[in-house]
Structures are given as C-alpha cells and as structure tokens.
C-alpha cells in the first residue's frame, strides 16, 4: 500500500493532486520527475526520473502495473451506500459498531456483533414502517 504522500488523488473539482514523494524511493519529487496516470483510476503516482529513465518500456509497464496494484482501492462501501441487511452478518464487530453509530442507534446494553446486527435490523425495519404510506380507506 502506498502512503498518502506517494500518490495523488482526484480532488473534489475533478483534478488530480500531484504526489509529494516518489512511490519507489520515497524521495521528494520535483518537476523533472514522472507522473503516472491510469485512465480508469482516480490516482496519480510519481516516480523519480532517475529511476524511471533506467527502465526499459517493458519494465516500465511492469513497474507501473505494480504501483497501481499497490494503490488503495476506492472504498466500495462509500460508493454503494450503507451495507444491506443481508450483508450485516459479514461485517466485523468494529464495522457494525460504526454502522450503528452512523444510523443513530441506542447501543446501551449491546455487547456482541449479533446484538449490534439485530439492533440495526430492528432499526431499519422500524424506519421502513415509519416511511411506508398509511394504509386503509380514505
């Protein structure tokens, strides 16, 4: 995994930030160095030119692929919204606690992952009931 300073990300305005440090040597980058972009990735990786210009094109492709492999992946959870009820059993205890906090659930008395998953299920069921249109005759 590369550190935050070794890769640049997409900013809110859609532009990439330039990394501050070389992803291979960890040394500070300057304007003569190489900035690698991958069309379908939100990340930029910087490499010291002195390292990069010693590599053959085939080796460059390998290094580039390896560096992009080591980049943090965009969080799937962030993109897809909160986990579905059916996914609760696959989450860790810590994730469940965070999720319960996020959903504003009263956690007093909850001790285990099962307790938290149950509370989240119950909370969502209650919310869906509250959001549902009222039935019956007009």
């Amino acid at each position, binding site marked *: 995994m590369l550190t935050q300073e070794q890769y*640049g990300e997409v*900013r809110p*305005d859609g*532009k*990439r930030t*330039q990394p501050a440090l070389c992803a291979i040597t960890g040394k500070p980058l*300057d*304007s*003569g*160095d*190489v*900035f*690698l*972009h*991958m*069309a379908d990735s939100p990340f*930029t990786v910087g*490499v*010291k*030119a*002195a*390292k*990069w*210009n*010693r590599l053959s*094109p085939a080796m*460059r*492709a390998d290094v580039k692929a390896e560096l992009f492999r080591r980049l943090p992946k965009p969080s799937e959870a962030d993109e897809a919204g909160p986990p579905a009820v059916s996914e609760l059993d696959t989450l860790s205890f810590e994730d469940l606690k965070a999720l319960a906090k996020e959903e504003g659930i009263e956690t007093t008395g909850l001790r285990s992952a099962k307790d938290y998953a149950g509370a989240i299920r119950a909370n969502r069921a209650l919310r869906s009931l509250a959001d549902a249109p009222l039935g019956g005759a007009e």
Partner: protein
Amino acid sequence: MPANISQFASTGLHSIQIGARGATGFFAGFGNLTAADTGDVSGMRRVYGAVTAPSPSEGINRVRNRGEDGYITARVFAAEPQDFDLEFEAADLDVETFLIGGIPYVLGDWDAGLGGSSTRNYQDTVVLLSAESTSMESATRGQSGYENLLIMSSKFVPRPGGFAFQAANSNVYSGTPEKVEVAPWGLTLDAMSERTDGMTYRVFTTNPLTLVCAVADGTTVEWDLPVKPVSAGKTKCFNFTTGLAMTVSAVNTTTDTATNSAAGTSGDILVFLLETTDL
C-alpha cells in the same frame, strides 16, 4: 507587458534546466519518456546552484562566472569553441547518472554516485538556460523578464567536482552541442525559421520558460503539469508525432493543468512549452 519583446539585455544567470532528447529528436522530459509511456508526464529538471553557462554558438567561448542570487566570481571560464561547460556549486547525482547512464548505487539510506567510469552511455540532452533580463525596447524599457536559450541537442561529460579550501565545491559538465533539423516539439527548423539546421533558439519571456513532455493515451485532454502555468496564451502545445500545433484551450493556475482542445492518438508525443511562476 507586451506579448513579445525582441530587444533585451540580460543581467545574470537565473536557472539551468535539462531534459532528455528522444530518439527522433522529441523532448522526452527528465523521465526520458517514450511512446510506450502513454498517459505519463515529465518536465525538466532544474539543476540548482548554476554558476556558469556559456553560449554554445560559434565564437563565443568565454563567460564571466555569475550565478544565482547575484553570486559572482572573478574567474573567467574558457571552453573550446562549440563546446560549453555547465558549472554548478550544487551536486545532483540524479543528473549525473542521467547524463552518463548507469544507476546510483543505493547504499543504505544514501545514493552513491559512481565517478571515473570508462564505459559511458551519454544522454542526448535538451538544455534550457534562463537569464534574468531587461527590455531595451523604447516602449517597455527597463521592464524585467527572462532571456531563454534552448540548446536542442548536447551530450555531456561530467567532470567530478573539486574540493577546495574555503570554497564551494564545483561540479562541471562539459557539453558538446550538435546541430538538429527538427525542434524538440516536432516542427522542422526549415518550416520555423527557413534554415535547415541549427543549435539554439532564443526567446524572451515575462516568466521563466520550461518544457513538459506528455504521452497521449487517446483520451486525456487535461494534463497535470509538474509546474504552474501562467495563462493559456503563454502555454503552447505541439504534437511531435504529427508535427502539428495543438490548441491549448485553458489552463488552471490553481490545479496546474492545461487543457487541449483534442486528445492525441495513443502514443503521440505531446510537448508543452510554457511560462511558469514555479522557477
């Protein structure tokens, strides 16, 4: 200040920047990019502590030592006509290995540069010298800018620095320029200046000039520049591969990007010439 000034006098060396000249004469950045490096960007390396940089043109082979920050030495440096020496007080092992090939040996926390090597792989180099300069035209007399000398093809022999008592060490690279027929951005000199070959181009700019290489990937139109551009008008882009100028429709001086009106074909070498406030 007007866009163009053709009468000026320089007052002192400002900066020396270098980058690779690719196999067909294109500017390849300090990263020595090739057509295979699609989507990648590389600029020029500034070599700090510049002291001496004579003109490589015929007949001018002596120059006073005058470096950055007004530093002046009493010596006059002489080089053979056609050759020229770049002298620095700052060492740069990356530049040395760039100029003569090989790799620095990583010795624990340190890079160790090898000297005195008999087998060398000289890098064809594009050098850009900038001097602080003043307009001599009547309408703009006294306004400051930069005189830039682009030396399009040179190969350098590094001469290891001297260690002296009560003096800064020096690092000298002796260069031999060669004539070229195609500018680093792809136009022929004949098309540009009605001369079939030449060594240098000289231009006056309001801010220091630099070059950036980007390798088109077929989709990218907005390129992250490694330095801050000044304006779209002071940022030019050429497609070396097609030999055509491209239109830079916008630059972003906050995010340091330049947007071309079209993306080149994947593998096309794009060369930006721009003024920057980062030097």
